[in-house]
């Protein structure tokens, strides 16, 4: 384990009543890195981070955080973590301020320091005016921002965010992304579970694509796109038959996939494809850049996983 390694996950297996949620995965997270864990619902993302948070014991394999074993040093590990859970668990019986005061106390932060930090973090997530409000009066986006503020109270060296922007409007989502980028610049190590490709592309240095408890692919976002699907995608609709279209494109280099009424052509350069398809007037042809979403769908399949 090198000095830069913050988290080391080795052959992690997690079973619930015989059902395998995580089927033997290994990965490391380096200091200051933002690692994205991508996967459809039920892929094992939440289970994986719960083991790192020491609230779910591994069935087999090991998880270490800064050299400390998750199964042995739970208090010390959790003292280093800032966790934004998937489900909102802000205490609805307390005010915004009381919520943060409670959490500061739990991390043994002295009262005076806590007061200053609470104001600072509330400002950071633009909730300063809401300090004395009840939780019930906050919108979904505000609650998420409050979760981020709460997770920052102990000045964590590792942030674990489980689908932090699910269900938020674009404004709220972008605000959270801004804040996460600011944290990354400060050197905070981040693990981000998400199924939003845009979020992964915006924030993550490296990605794990998880499906059915196993790692399908690992890599840097741009390289994953380039290696898995190429640079450009041509979507063809209104065709009279896939075979006809493919016949026109004989000799060109591309991968293709048919989903419903659409034929997807993945390639590095679409110019020749477009020229040949231009001969047909009835075809509806759309050219766009390849994205992480294409990689994701290609790897995890287009069927519903649940």
């Amino acid at each position, binding site marked *: 384990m090198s000095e830069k390694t913050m988290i080391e996950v080795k052959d992690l297996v997690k079973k*619930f009543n015989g059902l395998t949620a995580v089927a033997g995965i290994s990965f490391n997270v380096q200091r200051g890195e933002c690692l994205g864990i991508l996967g459809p619902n039920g892929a094992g993302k939440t289970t994986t981070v719960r083991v790192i*948070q020491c*609230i*779910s*014991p591994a069935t087999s394999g090991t998880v270490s955080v800064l050299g400390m074993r998750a199964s042995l040093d*739970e*208090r*010390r590990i*959790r*003292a280093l*973590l800032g*966790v934004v*859970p998937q*489900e*909102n*668990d*802000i*205490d*609805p*019986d*307390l005010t915004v301020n*009381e919520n943060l005061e*409670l*959490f500061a*106390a*739990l*991390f*043994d932060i002295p009262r005076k320091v806590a007061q200053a930090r609470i104001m600072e973090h509330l400002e950071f997530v633009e909730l300063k005016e809401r300090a004395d409000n009840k939780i019930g009066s906050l919108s979904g986006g505000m609650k998420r921002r409050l979760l981020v503020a709460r997770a920052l109270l102990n000045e964590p060296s590792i942030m674990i965010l489980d689908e932090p922007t699910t269900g938020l409007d674009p404004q709220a989502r972008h605000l959270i992304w801004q804040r996460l980028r600011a944290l990354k610049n400060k050197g905070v190590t981040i693990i981000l579970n998400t199924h939003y490709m845009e979020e992964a592309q915006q924030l993550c240095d490296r990605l794990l694509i998880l499906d059915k408890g196993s790692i399908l692919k690992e890599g840097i976002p741009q390289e994953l796109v380039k290696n898995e699907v190429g640079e450009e995608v041509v979507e063809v609709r209104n065709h009279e038959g896939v075979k006809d279209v493919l016949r026109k494109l004989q000799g060109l280099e591309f991968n293709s996939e048919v989903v419903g009424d659409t034929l997807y052509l993945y390639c590095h350069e679409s110019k020749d494809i477009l020229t040949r398809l231009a001969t047909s007037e009835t075809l509806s042809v759309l050219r766009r850049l390849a994205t992480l979403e294409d990689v994701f769908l290609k790897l995890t399949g287009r069927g519903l996983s649940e």
Partner: protein
Amino acid sequence: MKKLLAVLSYRIYYVWKRNLVSYKRFAIPTFIASMGEPLLYLVAMGIGLGSYMGLINGMPYLNFLAPGLLVSTAMFAATYECTFGAYVRMTVEKVYNALIVTPLTVEEVVAGEILWGMTRSMFSGFIMLIVLLLFGIAHWSSFLLMPLVWMAVGFFFSSLAIIITSFAPNFDFFTYYLELFITPMFFFSGVFFPLDRMPAVVKVIARFLPLTYAVDISRAFIRGPLGWNILRDFVILLVSASILFIWALHQMKKRLIK
């Protein structure tokens, strides 16, 4: 024991304090829920029924009834707090989920909840005792000794309630617990009638009901006489409560850490 001390620390206080801060907002409704029943019995049976009755054990029925109700209110307060109250915090409000990703352990969360249940027992007991003072049934000196009984009762019934909560799939589950265990105990542990003239079966059953011991202690504290049997009753209550406490920590951990 060593293992237990490693997972319990001063952080229990923060869980307790969280409940106190939240309680301030819901004090009145929760208070009425736990106080209402014993107070109702005091008025309806003690005064209503009591006026048609002669002396029981050499005292008016109201005076006989009062010490038992004084500990029953503590039992109800702890029971409601650590069943319905704890279940809401655990499943609806997700308070436990939030707490256990801090340096807090599950054991500390549970111990804090039980400590809070004991506190609620104390609150209810105090108010009830004030009422009894106003009725002229108790003496102010009871404020010195009664907290010991309320704490023991709170400890026992909070721990037991947490165990029930750890198994509860929904709210209906608590109705069974209340109707099949708590309410029968309320009626058969010597609160409403002396046990010594009951059939042997009832006497034997009563000896297995923890409230019986608390009622005995309370009656001795309020009416006298104070004897060594009180110490025995305390030991029985505290030992059984401690066993339930350890079990509660274990069961709740099983529910929360998966």
